[in-house]
């Protein structure tokens, strides 16, 4: 067994989004937090990219477990444990799943497992103005798409739209968790940086996986995506 092209593409999309938005994410975090979100995230994901060729590729689960370890070892702040746990739980979910299917429902299950991990770790819930406010609607959309038997590309598009809408909606929320919560009502009116990151990442994933049929795919159905 080995990694699938689709999962590698997703991780690449997440990593590159984290790195190319480092300053933007810091700016977002500076509004009601401490301005380091982009920095913390980028320091972990740049190691992912730097060690990309050497990463464990025995299976998607092993691959994601390795990503989790890198994040846990390199990313500080709240984001280290949160994102590390998310990758670890996704790895566990894929290890359990029927690796030959790899349709939207497997992806949804992995995302659901990540969400549960984040909630266990950080004690936040939907509405607390965290990345969960983008992730949970995204998982819901993905599950609905799976139930409707939509193709992966369409399912991912719906997922990204839901994440974006969730992220935008954090603007109206008062932060109940994380550093932004110290500002109380003053946090209303600003976007949650974690939720925005999730939106941008799911959008990038949808773009890059438009030609894939399954997250287990070894390669896109048509040409290499640009």
């Amino acid at each position, binding site marked *: 067994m080995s990694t699938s092209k689709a999962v590698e593409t997703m991780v690449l999309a997440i990593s590159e989004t984290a790195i190319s938005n480092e300053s933007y994410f810091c700016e977002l975090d500076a509004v009601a937090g*401490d301005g*380091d979100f982009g920095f*913390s995230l980028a320091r972990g994901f740049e190691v992912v990219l730097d060690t990309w060729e050497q990463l464990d590729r025995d299976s998607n689960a092993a691959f994601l477990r390795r990503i989790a370890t890198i994040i846990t070892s390199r990313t*500080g702040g709240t*984001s*280290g444990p949160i994102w590390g746990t998310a990758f670890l739980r996704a790895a566990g979910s894929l290890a359990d799943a029927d690796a030959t299917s790899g349709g939207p429902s497997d992806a949804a299950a992995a995302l659901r497992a990540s969400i549960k991990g984040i909630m266990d770790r950080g004690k936040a819930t939907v509405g607390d103005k965290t990345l969960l406010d983008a992730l949970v609607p995204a998982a819901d959309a993905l599950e609905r798409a799976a139930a409707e038997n939509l193709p992966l590309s369409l399912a991912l598009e719906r997922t990204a739209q839901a994440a974006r809408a969730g992220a935008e909606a954090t603007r109206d929320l008062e932060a109940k968790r994380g550093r932004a919560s110290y500002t109380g009502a003053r946090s209303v009116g600003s976007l949650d940086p974690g939720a925005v990151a999730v939106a941008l990442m799911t959008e990038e994933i949808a773009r890059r996986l438009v030609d894939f049929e399954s997250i287990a795919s070894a390669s896109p159905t048509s040409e290499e995506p640009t």
Partner: protein
Amino acid sequence: MKKFVNDPKQFVPDMLEGLALANPGTLTYDPASNLIMRVDAPVPGKVSILQGSGSGHEPAHVMAVGPGMLDGACPGDVFAAPPMDYVLAATRRLATEAGLVYIVNNYTGDRMAFEMAQELAEAEGIKVRTVIVDDDVAVDNSTFTVGRRGVAGNFFVIKAMGAAAERGADIDEVVRVGEHVNSVTRSMGMALTSCTPPAKGTPIFELGETEAEMGVGIHGEPGRERVQVRSASEIVDDLLDAIVSDLPFAAGDRVALMVNGLGGTPISELYLLYGLAHKNLVGRGIEIARNYVGEYCTSLDMAGASLTLVRLDEEIDELFGAPAAVPIRVF
């Protein structure tokens, strides 16, 4: 950005390397986990004490390592809790058969990293306990679910626990001392300017030429309210009103008073504040038995100050008076 820095991403390691080079006889530095530790740590038979936290609060906590204080500190990047791996590596390195206590300021990221590390360390058979510090009265404990922040009062928790550990207290006793000191410690700070993290390169928030932020957090988090700059006396009175009424402190109490600079405020202004705070407290019938004026827990280059009060009892007073040594020194 106006800072002494080479590669902003290397700010913390470069600072730690300088600290280690300046203290070759007393500190050991492990770059792999940002760990600054006593050169003689782990001290056999002694409970070890480890602090993490983000960087940018120096001298807290890497410069609070030494006999009678911390055995080690493994900070994360500026304002970011250390990665869990750093904590775990430091735990393995510092633990003794008497055990290891984490001192953790009450922030989500710090708590998670230390909880994860504690779980894994305990699985390896290491005896670990955690003391949470949450002395900041600016953030109301009941309204916000994450609870109060840990700020400059941290110094006193370290001091007392360090003294207890040094004289051979067991792990339960060291934890009890820490929790006891934290329970009678209250702080509040205010900012005259924002601060600029080296990697961000621009201020975390904007304060107008006549604005101040009351109750600011040590990571530049906004505080209770934004106010017009006022006189030093009014600032001291506001901070002490909030602090004194919180515990509450009362006439007849003996206290330790700390005037802590946030990084960009000169010591002259801190002593001016001390004089005002001293007179305010004496006016309330509170006796200042110990005082601490200087930088203890900063926010990079922020101009501002915090006040901390600790209600002293015989035990705490004695622990505060015990000998200790840290890299911060004049001679």
